[in-house]
């Protein structure tokens, strides 16, 4: 290889390496992979989501299977959470969803607990059994209130 060709080769290598980096960061870190393939889209209505955010992970037995894509307020003032999970999953219709906190002050995520029915949830269906988030302040409030009535 003469010098010009050698230089071209190095430039090509540099551009290639940088493009691979961008793709790696987008897919590996940015979570673009979840948009490939049709995900299973489920809805769940919660009374209280307490700091659950979009892109929060959705797990089954601690394994991440999807994420929260949208949170809106329903007509009946409940939080409607849109969940996209892996399309290949077959979740029974009596699957329940609960909002859980990792650690005391950690991030909120949704945990799915598969039920025992024979029929499976289809895309666009709603998860009927939900368990809202526990708000620490409210618990403490109840505790103080409860302690107050006891002493009376």
């Amino acid at each position, binding site marked *: 290889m003469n010098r010009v060709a050698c*230089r*071209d080769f*190095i*430039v090509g290598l*540099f*551009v290639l*390496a*940088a*493009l691979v*980096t*961008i793709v*790696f*960061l*987008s897919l*590996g*870190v*940015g*979570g*673009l992979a979840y948009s490939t393939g049709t995900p299973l889209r489920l809805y769940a209505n919660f009374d209280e989501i307490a700091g659950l955010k979009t*892109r*929060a*992970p959705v797990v089954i037995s601690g394994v*991440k299977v999807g994420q929260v894509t949208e949170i809106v307020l329903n007509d009946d003032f409940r939080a409607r959470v849109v969940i996209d999970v892996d399309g290949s999953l077959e979740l029974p219709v009596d699957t329940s969803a609960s909002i859980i906190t990792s*650690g005391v*002050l*950690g*991030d909120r995520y949704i945990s799915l607990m598969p039920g025992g029915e024979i029929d499976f949830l289809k895309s666009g269906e709603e998860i009927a059994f939900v368990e809202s988030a526990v708000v620490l302040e409210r618990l403490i409030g109840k505790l103080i209130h409860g302690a107050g009535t006891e002493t009376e």
Partner: protein
Amino acid sequence: MVNAIQELGAKTTRFIEELGRIAVFTWLIVRAVFRPPPRIRPFIDEVFKVGVMSLVIICVSGVAVGAVLGLQGYNTLVRFGATESLGAAVGLVLFRELGPVLTALLFIGRAGSSTTAEIGTMVATEQLDGLRMMAVDPIHYVITPKALAMLFVMPLLSSLFILFGLGGGYLVGAQLMGVDPGSYISSLQNAIVFKDDILSSLIKALTFGCMVGVISTFEGYSSAPTSSGVSRATTASVVVGSVSVLIVDYLLTALMGV
């Protein structure tokens, strides 16, 4: 009193004149890009000069910055018992701010200044006038490939900086300080959103590349044809480039609203 006001007016006018000249210069470059013949060969040479030759400083700085972020982040997070969020802290800072901004600042020092000096010397030794004598447009032949190469290279360098920064944070956080490697990576993956973080990081890098390309070539092109003129132009290129990158970074962050 009148003199002071007069001085202020003159300064304002000069500043606006300068802005106008940069705008016209940018327009000349944009026009030259689409005018045949395309200058592929000088463009590739410039990518080599400003891109490949900047790799070492970008990668080394990336690892160093990532390592410092990992260490500082760990020391702060350990007070709250939240060290498993270290990946998110390092990743968000790198993607949103430090990646594009530090890459741009390093790039100005490494490539922008040398580009300004090169063009300034061409002006001082009347090489650009020589080109004009031969009916070759110096903006088309000399300036455009340099500016385009900078625009092209910045997002690439910025991504590499971020990758090495994440690696540096991983080395210090997960290997040295004992954060669980799995939670470092999973908190990183949970925190980084493609649209909010990676795309805006690339947009920032592209904008900075555009600015550095225009400013460093403009300062060289409009430098006084003396050795002190070249030195002044190089200084101006670094100062104006760095300050405007930092200001525009704030504006872009505010505009993107994340």
